[in-house]
């Protein structure tokens, strides 16, 4: 077997990989958070009483789910500046382009996830809140949204992890994320196994950290007075198992 541990270790601890990982994480977080907001808005549009809003929401999901992510990415990076010359300026970086493209794309998926969350809230909840005299805004913020959150955390965490991996597509628009750096290193050294293995380790570690956050977040939404009394992890696992 031809595997050089020294090269692998050197790759793993290199500045380039660390920077690439930081860019990948940063892009994942901002794009996914933006997508959650887009998803919320689009899901509300799709549930709206106004026909036009429903149509816009439906069209959004249709378009951004149908077109491959890579095509959207290339379109935003290459075609948008052609259409809007203001984007040729230096401030329109690969990071901004990737952020825009991945948020718009992921927003369509999040819209469906949030919609399923909204449908999961029992209609008696809104009835009871309205009967108390709460305004529509207050009903949504205090009663509906917390319950939607609980339902959408597991699928959203899934999307988060998928998003991390999708950021590697941005290597196609010269964003210096993990995969870009890996490819460049390989083109110089021709050590495939070592560099791909190092990249894989980075993705594994980052996803593992995300999973810890997910577990902590789910624990916050357990809605039981027992939380925190027994060991942290076991409570979390019981919560996960019960679902």
């Amino acid at each position, binding site marked *: 077997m031809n595997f050089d541990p020294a090269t692998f270790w050197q790759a793993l601890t290199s500045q380039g990989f660390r920077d690439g990982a930081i860019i990948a994480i940063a892009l994942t977080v901002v794009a996914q958070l933006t997508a959650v907001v887009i998803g919320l808005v689009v899901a509300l549009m799709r549930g709206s009483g106004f026909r036009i809003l429903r149509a816009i929401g439906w069209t959004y999901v249709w378009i951004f789910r149908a077109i491959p992510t890579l095509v959207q990415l290339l379109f935003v990076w290459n075609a948008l500046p052609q259409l809007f010359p203001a984007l040729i300026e230096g401030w329109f970086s690969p990071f901004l382009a990737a952020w825009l493209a991945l948020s718009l794309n992921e927003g369509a998926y999040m819209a469906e996830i949030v919609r399923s969350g909204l449908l999961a809230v029992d209609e008696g909840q809104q009835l009871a809140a*309205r*009967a*108390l*005299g709460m305004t529509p805004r207050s009903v949504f913020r*205090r009663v509906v949204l*917390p319950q939607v959150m609980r339902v959408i955390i597991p699928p959203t965490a899934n999307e988060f992890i998928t998003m991390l991996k999708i950021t590697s597509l941005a290597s196609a628009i010269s964003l210096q994320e993990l995969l870009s750096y890996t490819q460049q290193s390989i083109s110089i050294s021709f050590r495939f196994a070592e560099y791909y293995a190092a990249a894989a380790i980075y993705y594994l570690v980052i996803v593992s950290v995300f999973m810890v956050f997910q577990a902590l977040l789910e624990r916050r939404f357990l809605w039981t*007075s027992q939380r925190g009394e027994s060991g942290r992890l076991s409570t979390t696992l019981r919560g996960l198992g019960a679902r």
Partner: protein
Amino acid sequence: MTDQPDHKLLLDPDLLGPAEVGPSATAPGSPGGSLLEAVDIRKRYGRNEVLRGVSFGVERGDVKAVLGPSGSGKSTMLRCLALLEPIDAGEVRLEGRTIGVRRAGARTVRLPERELAGQRSDIGMVFQRFNLFPHLTALGNVMLGLTEVRHRSKADASKIAGAMLERVGLGPRTNFYPSELSGGQQQRVAIARALVMNPKVMLFDEPTSALDPELVGEVLAVMEELAREGMTMVVVTHEIGFARKVADRVLMMDEGEIIEDGTPDEFFANPRHERTRRFLEAVH
């Protein structure tokens, strides 16, 4: 409950502010008129006419029990009174004032949701399926209306809610989530949640129908206590015993109409309507 010397009232003015209800309250608005009044309410869902001109009044401090087969429009009627459903025709009056709508020339227009919200806060509603907020503790459920609608501080709301929960017998359960409470306990939290708003009238939509038989008593006991303290109540129920014992008037609804309205004695001993007689035989 009332035998205890240190017994605390459910409708304690020290807790809820000046009494809106009860025999001691002086009646503002229409003297002698009903506190809550339905005037020829009509409501249809598509082709299905659910309410075909429902009229009745509830006097201040009175308890009105509403009986009737399922599908007769009882729940819809309560939701219309609580302004949760728009009505097609007729009026709902609270203290002589028409609520839920405003006049625009010759037409009446339903108020915007924001304004309806304010009027709803004076009408307490308890649901068959409790509808507690699962993400909030018992205390959180009772506090929410106080902080969100009455704009009380968290500290104030917590104090009032805690005291109210104690009075419905749930003092030791304030920090439990709904999923950790029995049906009877959940319904008592729901009653406390409505009561802390200091409503002028309480509407109950089959409050014990979703409960295991052994848990019905604890909920009815709280409602009885409320009635004794002078709360104005409309109770849709299948509990004949409660209607007989606690109600001042008993209504019978069938196919979207009120077909009988009498004192419990008249109603149960000598119903005027054949359909009432058949219904009473069926449920006994």
